[in-house]
């Protein structure tokens, strides 16, 4: 089991949930990253893509379940390990989507090194970047619970 202690402002949660939902809607029937697939088998490609989409939406459903829970951000958050894995995968997918849809003006280096002056960004980009960071923080906390050796990063 993954057991976190999280205290978050309820307004922040509502704002983040709205942004995650918007990103999720834009992923409806799509993938966060266009997958590279074997080129010589059309049937395999279709099955491959369909399975990835199904897995993505399974993971996103768990992320939304966590964020929509009335007790989220009010203290203890307990998840089964499989659910925690779904949540971290969904966080990655949403972050990739946010990068593609709203944060393309930021360079790879800026994103990798978190060298972004958030106040210098337009308001809508500020919100998306805040959501991007929020999901990264949630991922980090869960990953450390899943594997304490990840704390070194």
């Amino acid at each position: 089991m993954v057991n976190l202690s999280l205290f978050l402002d309820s307004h922040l949660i509502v704002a983040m949930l709205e942004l995650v939902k918007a990103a999720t809607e834009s992923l409806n029937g799509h993938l966060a990253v266009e997958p590279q697939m074997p080129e010589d088998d059309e049937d395999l490609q279709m099955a491959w893509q369909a399975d990835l989409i199904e897995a993505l939406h399974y993971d996103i459903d768990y992320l939304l379940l966590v964020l929509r829970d009335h007790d989220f951000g009010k203290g203890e958050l307990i998840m089964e390990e499989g659910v925690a894995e779904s949540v971290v995968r969904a966080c990655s997918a949403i972050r990739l989507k946010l990068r593609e849809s709203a944060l393309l003006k930021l360079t790879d280096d800026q994103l990798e090194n978190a060298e972004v002056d958030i106040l210098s960004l337009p308001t809508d980009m500020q919100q998306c970047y805040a959501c991007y960071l929020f999901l990264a923080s949630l991922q980090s906390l869960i990953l450390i619970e899943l594997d304490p050796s990840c704390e070194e990063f």
Partner: protein
Amino acid sequence: MKITAQAEKTTPVTASETKIALDILWHVIVLNDPVNLMSYVVTVFKRVFGHNHETARKHMLEVHENGRSLLWSGQREKAEAYVHTLQKWQLTATMEQDG
């Protein structure tokens, strides 16, 4: 006679193609992206390939510093399964034929 001859001719070709397919090495490659966290990538490598911390960390740093890392080599079917699993974890993974 003709059918037999065709069978005699066809069988070795099929066997040969099968042997060639099994002999070809496929590489599973993970490419860098600016989004996924280092800790996340390490966790994925541990879970997908069963790596210990040091091996997973080494591959993660290769991806980060060189833009790509070769994670596994072997038969095509298993390489496809690894790439598919890595893509479910939202990593940019691909497979390349040896040579």
